[in-house]
């Protein structure tokens, strides 16, 4: 009979080690014969669509989900094939991905970082999702991207516009098709200078969070380079609903342009308030007072109604584009759902197809192989002209649209008109300016 020497310190040590082992999420500890996390072994592969299904961006999330469902249908050989018909890469055959039928699970980000991480974790751990995609917020994108990096799955970002997503917070496992704040500023500034002149005094109202800061900085830098002066930049709480106390002092400041670095409900309310105050009817410094909204979304423009008329902004994509890819996507989406797709739907659909194509070209679902196939991948036919998925930061570089609120819309979808398609060369920047490190790709298990 052996004698056990139980000591208080020993029991505590053992307990602590065992506790830490139990507490650690299984995706970070699981050891298996698989070469990477959630390696598909059956006849199907599961993708995770993590979109806002509740909360303020639920309508945008619903449109993203429609796009993903359409993409899955096309990948599995259903429907009219959508953008697979116009995509420059011909690796996709409509027989799933690598011959495996595409299935999907959905999660609700609620536009909250913690909820989005929890739903992504659940889809990876419980449902075996090999890729996570979607979202309508940069905070969520950065949080979920970090989780996917740790878990060893690919993250194909949805609608996220902050420079940080592929800047200081970039990750080797994360990829963004959507444009960013820098590109908005670079595309907008020349149009603003052409239309409003170079001698302007701008007043910025900026949403008090990460996306607001990067957008303000991008627009300020670009417009100041054109000769504009920034009179003031005031941060507004994200929870603000009535912006009257922020808008009322604008005219007193001597500014003749108001830049609203707001998105979603903030944008709808601040723009509505600014128009109510009659700013656009005023003559300041012998010039017509103007308003600028750096990031437009058709769904948000709908919320602001007639207030968007004549107001410049930028957007990633618009259904009225006349290239073959855009026409095809509008046809496929419009026929299935009865209305044109939003830019959120477009970027999500494209991300799903780009991932599937990369897997086909890599011949593997291994995230490192997929990442390699996506890095420095050049493609066309997806609706924004020739596009590069830059390897240095996993950011797509493509044409950026400058749009204006339409004066005489013919329907509730016909709210924006394209003023200019800014070429890629004008919105390209050095990857090092935003800092951050991609790090090494993580295949997980």
């Amino acid at each position, binding site marked *: 009979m052996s004698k056990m020497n139980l000591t208080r310190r020993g029991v505590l040590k053992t307990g602590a080690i065992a506790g830490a082992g139990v507490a650690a999420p299984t995706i970070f500890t699981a050891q298996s014969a698989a070469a990477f996390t959630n390696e598909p072994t059956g006849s199907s592969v599961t993708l995770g669509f993590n979109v806002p299904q*509740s*909360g*303020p*961006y*639920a*309508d945008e999330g619903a449109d993203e989900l429609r796009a993903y469902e359409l993409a899955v249908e096309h990948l599995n050989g259903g429907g009219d094939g959508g953008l697979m018909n116009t995509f420059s890469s011909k690796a996709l055959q409509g027989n799933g991905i690598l011959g495996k039928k595409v299935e999907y699970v959905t999660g609700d980000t609620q536009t909250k970082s913690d909820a989005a991480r929890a739903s992504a974790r659940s889809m990876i751990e419980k449902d075996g999702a090999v890729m996570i995609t979607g979202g309508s917020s940069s905070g969520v994108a950065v949080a979920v991207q970090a989780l996917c990096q740790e878990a060893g799955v690919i993250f194909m970002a949805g609608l996220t516009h902050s420079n940080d997503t592929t800047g200081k917070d970039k990750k080797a496992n994360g990829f963004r098709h959507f444009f960013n704040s820098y590109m908005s500023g670079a595309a907008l500034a020349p149009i603003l200078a052409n239309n409003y002149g170079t001698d302007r005094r701008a007043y910025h109202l900026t949403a008090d969070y990460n996306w607001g800061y990067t957008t303000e900085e991008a627009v300020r830098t670009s417009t100041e380079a054109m000769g504009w002066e920034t009179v*003031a930049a*005031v*941060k507004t*709480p994200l*929870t603000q*609903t*009535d912006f*009257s*106390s*922020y808008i*009322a*002092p604008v*005219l*007193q*400041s001597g500014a003749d342009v108001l830049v609203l670095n707001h998105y979603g*409900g903030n944008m*709808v*309310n601040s723009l*509505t*308030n600014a128009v*109510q*105050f*009659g700013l656009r*009817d*005023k003559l*300041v410094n012998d010039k017509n007072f103007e308003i600028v909204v750096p990031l437009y979304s058709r*769904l*948000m423009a*709908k*919320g*602001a*109604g*007639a*207030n968007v008329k004549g107001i410049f902004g930028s957007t990633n994509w618009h*259904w*009225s584009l006349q290239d073959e890819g855009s026409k095809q996507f*509008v*046809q496929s989406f*419009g*026929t299935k759902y009865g*209305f*044109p797709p939003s830019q959120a739907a477009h970027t999500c659909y494209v991300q799903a197809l780009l991932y599937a194509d990369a897997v086909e070209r890599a011949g593997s679902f291994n995230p490192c192989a997929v990442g390699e196939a996506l890095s420095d991948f050049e493609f066309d036919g997806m609706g924004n002209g020739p596009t590069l998925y830059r390897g240095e930061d996993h950011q797509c570089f493509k044409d950026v649209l400058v749009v204006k609120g339409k004066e005489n819309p*013919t*329907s509730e*979808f*016909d709210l924006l008109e394209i003023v200019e398609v800014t070429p890629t060369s004008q919105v390209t920047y050095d990857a090092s300016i935003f800092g951050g490190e991609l790090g090494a790709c993580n295949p997980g298990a």
Partner: protein
Amino acid sequence: MDAIILQILNGLDKGSAYALIALGLTLIFGTLGVVNFAHGALFMIGAFCAVTLSRLLQISHTVIDETQKDFLGNPLQVEVPYIYDIFGQATGDVIIDWAVPISILFAIPVMVLIGVAMERGLIKHFYSRPHADQILVTFGLAIVLQEIIKYYYGANPIPTPAPDAFKGSFDFGAALGFDPNTIIYPYWRLVYFAFAAIIIGGVFAFLQFTTFGMVVRAGMADRETVQLLGINIDKRFTLMFGLAAAVAGLAGVMYTPINSPNYHMGMDFLVLSFVVVVVGGMGSLPGAVLAGFLLGILESFASMREVLEFLPGINQIIIYLVAIIILLTRPRGLMGRKGVMED
């Protein structure tokens, strides 16, 4: 000076909304003793009464316009409101343009019915329960109501503009001898302030100068004695709940042109309105109105760029800071009565 006048004006319309919601809240608390966290949802439902009427007025039939194409290249289906067929396009446009003010007539019976149904169907079962239970059940009810609205109307804000006659702003600066454009204020916000003043005055007059109001005030002071006189005070208090719901609903109806309504707008006002009630004094109607305007004006001043440069973030905490100071110096609030919520 012009900046101060401007922020006072700003505070008045913001304070009008706070005061109207807080007035209903404190009315319910003063009569029924219920802390109603679903009151913000009533404000939101009122706003959606305006959205609903606006949509009802625009129910349309489609006419194919061969000369125009839709986004798929098919002939455009033009929506023609039935109201054009009934009244002609010119009159129809005027009626649609005035949808928000017309909604007042629609919202009053709807909100009274919702209020009475809420009180009779759910809240009356919680009169004898602790305030914590009342808060939980009414907060849960608020979430249910906003999710129902989101299900039917979506999560995005829905533009519900003011009539064209009230678009634009009034130049107080020019009128008061300052430089033009220094003090401008939207016409509709002035209408909102005037409307709030009329509603608040109406509620006070109703309670002060009618027999019904006198009985209610007596019931608020001593419920048991009034019941001993053979008066069914419960029935009157139920109607007061309906009245409070209507006040919140009307505040919501008229607020829709200021900010496009969405399902969450009630929650945005709820917490601040509770602070208003507590600062004004639980159960005190004049206190709620006074605190509503006071805190609205303070919030506006705290949002001034000059103030934010010295005290960054003060705009987000000013109301709570003032609430703490007032409650430390006057524990019953500005106009609170002894014995209310002190047992």
